[in-house]
């Protein structure tokens, strides 16, 4: 589709960029006392308008800008996840005390730009867009991670983020350049067509290119061994941003990796077939299975030793990437839908857990597990919500995390491949029970009721309780979400 025609399909993204420009101008010309509030409101309105345009977008799968971006139900599903995560963070950000001494209006602006990058990641069909969208998200996140300019930890975290981020995207770019060299095109469908006919000798180059590209994707989803930035960045960044980074860019990384790897290294360009096989001679499934095993094991084992809750949740988010990678080793329709379902559930439970961490941080100023003692008596509703989020993260019924995990495991079992990986996944879930329960124990068992009550801002507590509803609801009645995922499982492919 030509550029002018494409613009109508690009409206949500256009709204995001143009409102970012409006915010920059507002920032320059409006110097009143309510500037933070005004820009907060403007950004929320922009997100709302983008959501409306996204809702109105019901066209069949298509590619816009001469095949550079896909507009299909698959990308729309992920865009909703990004919007939801962003709105939750926007709602609680004014009430996070960490941010009080910093210019929040710039923070809102950068978040809006990151959302734009995430939207591009979910719909990229071209290597140039792949690189650009990852960089747009990364550069915005670097700034946001280092947003607390006076805090040493925040500075350290943004330094580590920028070094790891720039390095891994550079290595990924080298891999993309090799892919471009083998295939002679930057369009993923052309690359797929070229790769399915490569002679046997080029397979080594192809495997090297796949590994290098996985460096960049693995960095975005925090896959071992490209995870080293995760704990430090998550601990040092403002907690609101940590919550955001652990959900939205990770979902975008999966959206991008599943589509790009699925098409580029698949034996057929059509991702809608249900079955998926890699290009002949490429050990794709085994490679991903090994990465998955390493990711969940390392994440869980190191999480046990943590005393900072933010750091613990960082390692747990690494482990969750490992669970989702289990299904990515198979990559058929069932696997993709299981990952999408899990990402949607993960959005609610992980955001919820981090919001409770913000609640604690507002009260005590730091996030050691010691500070959680007695929370069960001081703020019972929030503590019970945290308990439910932790049960869900562990994967215990009757929470949504349990259903999500069952879907992930059933992918391996029904495909009758990688049995060892499924066994390892179950063992890892047991290990994760231990460290999640440490938080639960601190909240309810490690202290006597003192009669003291702590209460956060109603907007913060309210959001925490609201996030609890889907975690419980989808644990007993998940078919609406699964139906949504199944109907979103439609990719653009050139044959359509």
């Amino acid at each position, binding site marked *: 589709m030509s550029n002018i025609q494409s613009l109508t399909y690009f409206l949500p993204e256009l709204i995001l960029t143009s409102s970012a420009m409006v915010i920059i101008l507002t920032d320059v010309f409006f110097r009143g006392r309510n500037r933070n509030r005004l820009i907060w409101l403007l950004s929320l309105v922009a997100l709302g308008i983008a959501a409306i345009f996204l809702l109105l977008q019901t066209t069949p799968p298509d590619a816009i800008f001469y095949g550079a971006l896909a507009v299909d139900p698959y990308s729309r599903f992920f865009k909703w996840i990004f919007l939801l995560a962003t709105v939750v963070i926007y709602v609680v950000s004014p009430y996070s005390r960490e941010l009080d001494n910093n210019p929040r209006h710039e923070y809102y602006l950068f978040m809006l730009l990151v959302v734009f990058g995430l939207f591009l990641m979910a719909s990229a069909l071209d290597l140039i867009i792949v690189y650009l969208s990852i960089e747009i998200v990364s550069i915005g996140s670097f700034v946001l991670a280092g947003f607390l300019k006076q805090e040493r930890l925040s500075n*350290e975290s943004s330094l580590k983020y*920028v*070094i790891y981020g720039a390095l891994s995207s550079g290595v990924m770019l*080298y891999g993309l350049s090799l892919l471009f060299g083998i295939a002679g095109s930057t369009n993923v469908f052309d690359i797929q067509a070229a790769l399915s006919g490569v002679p046997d000798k080029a397979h080594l180059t192809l495997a090297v290119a796949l590994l290098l590209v996985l460096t960049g994707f693995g960095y975005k989803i925090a896959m071992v061994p490209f995870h080293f930035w995760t704990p430090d960045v998550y601990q040092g960044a403002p907690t609101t941003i940590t919550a955001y980074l652990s959900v939205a860019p990770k979902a975008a990384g999966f959206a991008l990796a599943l589509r790009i790897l699925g098409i580029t290294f698949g034996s057929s360009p059509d991702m809608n077939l249900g079955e998926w096989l890699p290009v002949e001679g490429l050990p794709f499934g085994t490679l991903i299975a090994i990465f998955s095993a390493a990711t969940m094991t390392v994440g869980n084992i190191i999480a046990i030793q943590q005393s900072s809750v933010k*750091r613990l949740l960082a390692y747990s988010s690494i482990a969750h990437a490992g669970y989702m990678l289990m299904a990515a080793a198979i990559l058929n329709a069932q696997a993709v839908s299981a990952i999408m379902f899990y990402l949607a559930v993960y959005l609610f439970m992980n955001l919820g857990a981090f919001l409770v961490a913000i609640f604690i941080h507002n009260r005590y100023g730091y996030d050691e597990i010691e500070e959680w003692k007695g929370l069960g008596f001081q703020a019972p509703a929030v503590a019970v919500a945290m308990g439910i989020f932790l049960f869900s993260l562990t994967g215990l019924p009757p929470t949504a995390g349990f259903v999500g995990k069952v879907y992930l495991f059933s992918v391996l079992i029904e495909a009758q491949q990688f049995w060892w990986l499924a066994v390892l996944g179950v063992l890892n879930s047991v290990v994760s029970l231990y460290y999640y329960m440490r938080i639960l124990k601190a909240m309810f068992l490690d202290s006597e009721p003192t009669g003291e009550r702590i209460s956060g801002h109603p907007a913060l507590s309210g959001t925490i309780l609201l996030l609890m509803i889907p975690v419980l609801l989808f644990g007993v009645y998940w078919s609406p979400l699964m139906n949504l995922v199944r109907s979103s499982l439609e990719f653009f492919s050139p044959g359509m």
Partner: protein
Amino acid sequence: MDSLQSYLFLSIILFCFGLYGVMTRRNGVAILMGIELILNSANLNLVAFNRFGGLSELLPGHVFALFVIIMAASEAAVALAIIINLYKTFHTVNVDEAHEMRG
């Protein structure tokens, strides 16, 4: 010197130098220079593949390289700002000394 192989050889050398620089240097700015080398090695690849692969009409490789240059510039700007900010709080640009989070 006018063959694809020689350009690819040069690019892999640049890539390795960049990676070596990132791994061994402890000065934040020097690490960034290593990363720039990696990005430029990829650019060299892109342009060389475009030149020798008979893809001259639309120049996808050249366009890709241009975008990479733009992104590298903005990334360097953000990274340098972060390093300046690091210097204000830690009074050093040595990345090993900015290491308070462990575990």
